[in-house]
Every structure is written in structure tokens, then in C-alpha cells.
């Protein structure tokens, strides 16, 4: 395991210290908890957004705490949902009286821990609502199973619901817009290499020199199938096809995110974007905005995901709104 770390047991705490040292104007850490909140939290009268999950997905979620996006981010152990008390502390710290929206990614652990935190908040009469992001089309959706995972598309929820909250919308309205994003965003990812959870000390799976995993999530778990490595264009084609098969984007305007999993250079993400963009153009889908970069990572895994969000006027306006956070700034 080659990592720039000290003790694997303290990576999350030390990382959060480093974040606060780097961005004191944006975030502060709650004493005794692995929770980052806006430096000026709580903001009276504004709906607050709290997200989080296991660590190892940086800049998600702490990097998106700031104006126009999140109010709080809860950092669990690497790839492990945070505990309910941590989420509850975040809720208390950001609640400005207008209620708190929990943005949860669809993982059994995240769901249960955030649910328990919501129960705790309800007992203290804090108004809490939740949305569950499930954008990953690699996993079939079914009521009998866990259903689709939440992956990089979550960042669009942060951006757009965050903008709605910043505009003064109430909790129901913010929740409704978050749900609109969730309904309209789909993603799929792939990887060229595994990653190593610091405390585990060894890679999460094995891949031969000519193999890749298709349809994998962001927790180092294997994907839905192994394949021989294909050229970037073929990979992009496969990902886009799977996404377009899931909802009908034809004739619409979309936002695209080419998300790196942490170990893949921007050069490759842009090569992917070239093809994704061409494919959408061919199909008459208009790309309104594109994000390329490491937004929701999986430690040092090489690979990426494509997310496509179908836009309407409301979503476009909120997507374009100003944001000012450590990892995403928009004028």
C-alpha cells in the first residue's frame, strides 16, 4: 500500500484537520465529530442541506460545503456510512429554523444511519426531510433488492438543491427540486484498477493488466462484470448507451459530468468527454453544461463515471446559480 498517510486509523481525522486548515473561510469542524459545516452555520431562515457517507470520496462531500451547495457534510470511516449521532450533530449545527434536508446516497448503511439520525432530530423537533439518490444504472432497480446505488450524480443534487435553498425556498420546495434532479439523473462507472482502503492495507479486488471492471460503484467493490480493456471511445459508448436506455433523453437538454475516480488524469477524462459529447450530439441531445474532474472519487482508483442529467428551465437556472465551496466555485 503506497499512500501519503500516517496512521491508517486516523486518516479521516487528519484529513478533516487538513481541510479546515486549508479552507477556514469556508468550513469549520464540529469539535469531537467528523462533521464539517459552513463557517457561518447555522444560517437563520435558510433550509440547510446535510450530506455525507463514508470517506474516500473526496471532494465529496466536505468539499461541497459552502454557499449554494451543502451546509454540512458528515464523514464516516473510509467507505463506511457515518453513525447516526454524527449525522444528528451535523443536523443540529446547521439547522437555522427552516428545516434540514438530508441528501442520502442509496446504500443500506447510509439509509439506516441517516434514518436513525432523522428519528433523533424529530425527537428534538427539528424539521428534517430526506432524499435518496440512486443514479447508478449498472444496478437494476427493483423493489426486491437494494436498488440502484447513489454515485456521482449526487453532486448535481447538492448543486441544484443547494441553489434552491440559497434562493430561500422552503423545505418542501427544496426537497421537491432535489427529487426532480434524482428522477432525471443517471450515471454509470467503470474502473481500470482497484483501490486500497488504508485500514485494510490491500487492494479491494484484482484485475489483470488487460482487464477492467464495468458498472462499479464508489466503494472499491467489484462491478457488474469484468471485461478486457477497450479503447476510451468504446467504453464511453457502453456507458452512454446504458444510461440512455434507462430514461428517455431524446430532444432534451442535459448536463454531463465526466467524473474521475481519483487516480485517472484529467487528460483521460477529457478524452472520454470528447466521445460522450459526440455521442449525445449524434442522438440530438443538447449538452447545456459539462463538468469534468474528480467530483466523487473512490480513493486512488483509476477509472471514471458518466452522469447525465435531463434539464428543464428550473434546473438550468439553479445549475447556473453562483456557488462558492472549496471544491466547486461558479461565478
Amino acid at each position, binding site marked *: 500500500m503506497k499512500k501519503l498517510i500516517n496512521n491508517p486509523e486516523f486518516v479521516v481525522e487528519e484529513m478533516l484537520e487538513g481541510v479546515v486548515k486549508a479552507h477556514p473561510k469556508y468550513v469549520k469542524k464540529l469539535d469531537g465529530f467528523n462533521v464539517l459545516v459552513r463557517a457561518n452555520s447555522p444560517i437563520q431562515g435558510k433550509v440547510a442541506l446535510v450530506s455525507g457517507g463514508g470517506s474516500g470520496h473526496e471532494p465529496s462531500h466536505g468539499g461541497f460545503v459552502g454557499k449554494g451547495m451543502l451546509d454540512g457534510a458528515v464523514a464516516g470511516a473510509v467507505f463506511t456510512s457515518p453513525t447516526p449521532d454524527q449525522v444528528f450533530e451535523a443536523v443540529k449545527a446547521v439547522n437555522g429554523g427552516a428545516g434540514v434536508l438530508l441528501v442520502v446516497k442509496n446504500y443500506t448503511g447510509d439509509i*439506516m444511519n441517516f434514518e436513525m439520525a432523522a428519528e433523533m432530530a424529530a425527537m428534538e423537533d427539528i424539521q428534517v426531510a430526506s432524499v435518496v439518490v440512486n443514479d447508478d444504472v449498472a444496478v437494476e432497480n427493483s423493489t426486491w433488492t437494494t436498488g440502484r446505488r447513489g454515485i456521482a450524480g449526487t453532486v448535481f443534487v447538492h448543486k441544484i438543491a443547494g441553489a434552491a435553498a440559497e434562493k430561500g425556498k422552503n423545505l418542501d420546495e427544496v426537497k421537491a427540486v432535489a427529487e426532480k434532479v434524482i428522477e432525471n439523473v443517471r450515471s454509470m462507472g467503470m474502473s481500470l484498477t482497484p483501490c486500497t482502503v488504508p485500514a*485494510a492495507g490491500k487492494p479491494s479486488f484484482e484485475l489483470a493488466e488487460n482487464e477492467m471492471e464495468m458498472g462499479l460503484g464508489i466503494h472499491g467493490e467489484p462491478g457488474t462484470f469484468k471485461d478486457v480493456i477497450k479503447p476510451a471511445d468504446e467504453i464511453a459508448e457502453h456507458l452512454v448507451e446504458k444510461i440512455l436506455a434507462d430514461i428517455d433523453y431524446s430532444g432534451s437538454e442535459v448536463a454531463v459530468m465526466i467524473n474521475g475516480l481519483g487516480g485517472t488524469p484529467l487528460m483521460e477524462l477529457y478524452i472520454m468527454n470528447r466521445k460522450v459529447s459526440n455521442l449525445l450530439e449524434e442522438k440530438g441531445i443538447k449538452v447545456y453544461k459539462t463538468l469534468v474532474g474528480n467530483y466523487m472519487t473512490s480513493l486512488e482508483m483509476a477509472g471514471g463515471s458518466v452522469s447525465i442529467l435531463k434539464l428543464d428551465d428550473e434546473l438550468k437556472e439553479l445549475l447556473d446559480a453562483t456557488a462558492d465551496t472549496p471544491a466547486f466555485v461558479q461565478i
Partner: protein
Amino acid sequence: MIHRDQLLKIIEEITMVIGTNKQFLTDLDQAIGDGDHGINLDRGFRAIKDKVEAVKDRDCGTILKTVAMGLISTVGGASGPLYGTAFMKAGQVVANKMEISPEDAVKIMDEAIQGIMARGKAAQGDKTMLDALIPAHEALKASVESGEALISAIAKAVEAAEGGVAFTKTIAAKKGRANYLGDRSIGHQDPGATSSYLMLKAISDVLVREA
């Protein structure tokens, strides 16, 4: 009867067994999950040590609830709320009691399973800890109802749990992270079922040793 002091020994034994199997459980989770199950539970059980120590003179219910709260606030992931809920329900069954009767033991497992199912919305056959716990509960219940001694009833439960673990190898996951693998999860035993088995085995070992 399991006396309060035996319960404390059982908790210690579980802590030790989870520690020894940390890597094993993590490896199982790497194969079909995200490779943290052993790390999660080990972190949790190590964290409850001092908390349990602080209530060691209290009743079984208090002790079990302390374990529950400790797990909930340190384990995280899927197994944290689930085992946390299980211990919480167990504690409610024996609130204010200084010992656990065979009937209590059956009730504890029943309530724990109900709690896990309510929280996690899984059923038997979904390739989760329930596939170890449900058969174990059935065996325990049958043995206790037919008047067997607790020590042998629990041994039967352990055996049933072991069978449940083996069964998880044969099925695809419907719940938890392993579900994302589809049929690729077949052939691998479920980490949570395995940890449940190890906990039951720890209980049995303490009872045998103390007998």
C-alpha cells in the same frame, strides 16, 4: 440461566473473537462488498469496552443497551445500525434482570431478528446476517421448548447458524452491497452472516467453558 457476570464474559469473548477474525471478515467483505466489515465491527467492539466496564454492576438490560449504543455510535455502515438495533432489542427483553433464562434467550433472538428486519427491510434468503440468525433462532426455540438445557440449545443454534452461513454461499444477494454484484456474489459466504455465527459461537464457548 446466563448470569450477568457470564454476560460480561460473553461480551468480552465476542470482542476477542471479532478482533481475531477482523481480517477474515474484511476479506469476505472485499470479495462481495466494500471490505470493511471486520474493520467496522472491530472498531465498534473495542470502543464499547470502557462503556461496558462503567455499567458492569448493573442489570443485563443496561449492559446490553450500553453495547447497543456503543455499536450504533462507532460501527457505521450497514452492520452498525443492525447489530445496534439487535442489542437494543435484546436489552429491552431483559430490562432490570440480573440473569437471562432460556426463554429470555429465545425471546432475545426473536426480538433482535424482528428489529433487524424492521430496520434493514431484508428477509431470509437475501444473503444477509438473517440467514444465520433465523435458523439459529428456530433451532434455539425448538430445543428450549422441548426442555433441553440452554447450553446444548445454544450449541444447536450455533450449528444452525453455521448451516446458514454455508447456505449464503449458494445464493445471490438481494440486500446490502453484495446485491450490486448480481450473480457474481454466488459462491461467496456473507460477511454479516459469518459475524453473526461467530458471535453465537462465542456465547456457546463461554457457556461451555463456564459450565
